C-alpha cells in the first residue's frame, strides 16, 4: 500500500506541477501538436524501450537458466534465444519508425 500511496502522490505532483504551462501566451488554439511532438516522441520511445528491455531480460534469464540445467542443448537454446530477442527488439523498433513517420 505504501507503493500505491507513493504513486498517487507522484501523479498528483506531476499534474499540479504542470499547471504553470497553461500560462503560455501567444497560441490561439491553446494546444498545437507541433510543439508537443518531440516530448511525446521521447516519452513513447522511452516506454517502448523500457518494456522491451524487461521482455528481453526475462528471455535471457530463462535461456541462461535452461543452459545451466541442460548444457547439452546449448545450441538449440541459443537459437531460440536469438530468435526471441530479435522479435522483441523489433517491437521497440516499430515505435521508432512511427516516430520518424509522424515527425
Amino acid at each position, binding site marked *: 500500500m505504501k507503493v500505491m500511496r507513493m504513486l498517487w502522490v507522484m501523479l498528483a505532483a506531476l499534474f499540479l506541477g504542470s499547471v504553470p504551462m497553461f500560462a503560455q501566451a501567444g497560441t490561439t488554439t491553446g494546444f498545437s501538436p507541433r510543439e508537443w511532438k518531440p516530448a511525446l516522441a521521447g516519452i513513447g520511445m522511452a516506454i517502448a524501450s523500457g518494456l522491451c528491455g524487461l521482455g528481453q531480460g526475462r528471455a535471457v534469464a530463462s535461456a541462461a537458466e535452461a543452459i545451466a540445467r541442460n548444457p547439452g542443448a546449448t545450441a538449440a537454446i541459443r537459437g531460440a534465444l536469438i530468435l526471441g530477442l530479435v522479435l522483441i527488439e*523489433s517491437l521497440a523498433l*516499430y515505435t521508432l519508425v512511427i516516430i520518424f513517420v509522424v515527425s
Partner: protein
Amino acid sequence: MAQEPEQDVWTTILFNKYLAGPADAVLNAVGIKPENPQHPWQNWLTMEILVVAIIVVLFWFIRTRLSVERPGKLQHISEVFYNFFTEQTNEAVTEHGERYMPFFGTIFIFILFMNLIGIIPGFESPTMTPAVPAGFAVAVFLYYNFMGMRAHGVGKYLAHFAGPMPWLAPLMIPIEIISHLARPLSLTIRLYANMFAGEQVTMAFLGLTYLVIPVAFQGLHVFVSFLQAFIFMVLAMLYVGAAVAHEEEGH
C-alpha cells in the same frame, strides 16, 4: 520524414550521367513519371545493382576455383555457409527442404552484403531505404504462398485459413488474414528500422565526437547486419515451413 535531402553516391551520379535516357524510357513505358527526368536513378537502386555485380563476380570466382582434392580458403568458407543453410532449412522445413534452400541462401547473402556495404565510406546500404526491405518482404510473401499452394493445391491451402474446426471459420479467417498480412509488414519494418536506426545513432554520435565512440557503433552495425540477415532468413524459413507442412494425422 524529417531527413535532409540525400546526397548521391558516386554510382548514382555515374548512372544518372550515362543511363538517364533508358531509365526514363522504362519508367514512362510502365506509366510512372519521374519527378526529375535528369535524375531517375535513386541511390538504393544503383547500390543494389552494384551489390549484385559484386556477388556475381565473387561467386563466379569461387566457382572457377572449386576442387575436390585441394580446396582453397574460399571453398572452405562457402562449404561452411552451405552446411549452415542446409542444416537450418532441414530444421525449419521438415520435408524436401533442399528445394527451398537456394532461395533462403540467396536472401541471406544478398541482405548481408547489402547491409555490410554501408560501412565502407562512399557507399550507402540499400536497406536503409524502406523500398528495398519492402521488396524482399513482398518476395518472401509471394514465395511462401506460392509454395504452400504448390504443396497442397490452391483450394486446400486456402481452406487451412479456416482453422481446425469448420464452425470456427468466421472467427479464424479474419485473424489468419490479418496475421498473414502482418508478416511482410513486420519483416520490412524490422530490417529497415534496424539499419536506419543504426545509421542515425552513428550520425548522432559523430555529431558529438570524432574519436573512438562512433567506431563502436560501426561495430554494432556489423553485428546487427549479420543478425538481421539471419533473422530474415529464419523467419522466411518458418513461414515456408508453416505453409508447406502436412499434418501427420489423416494423411
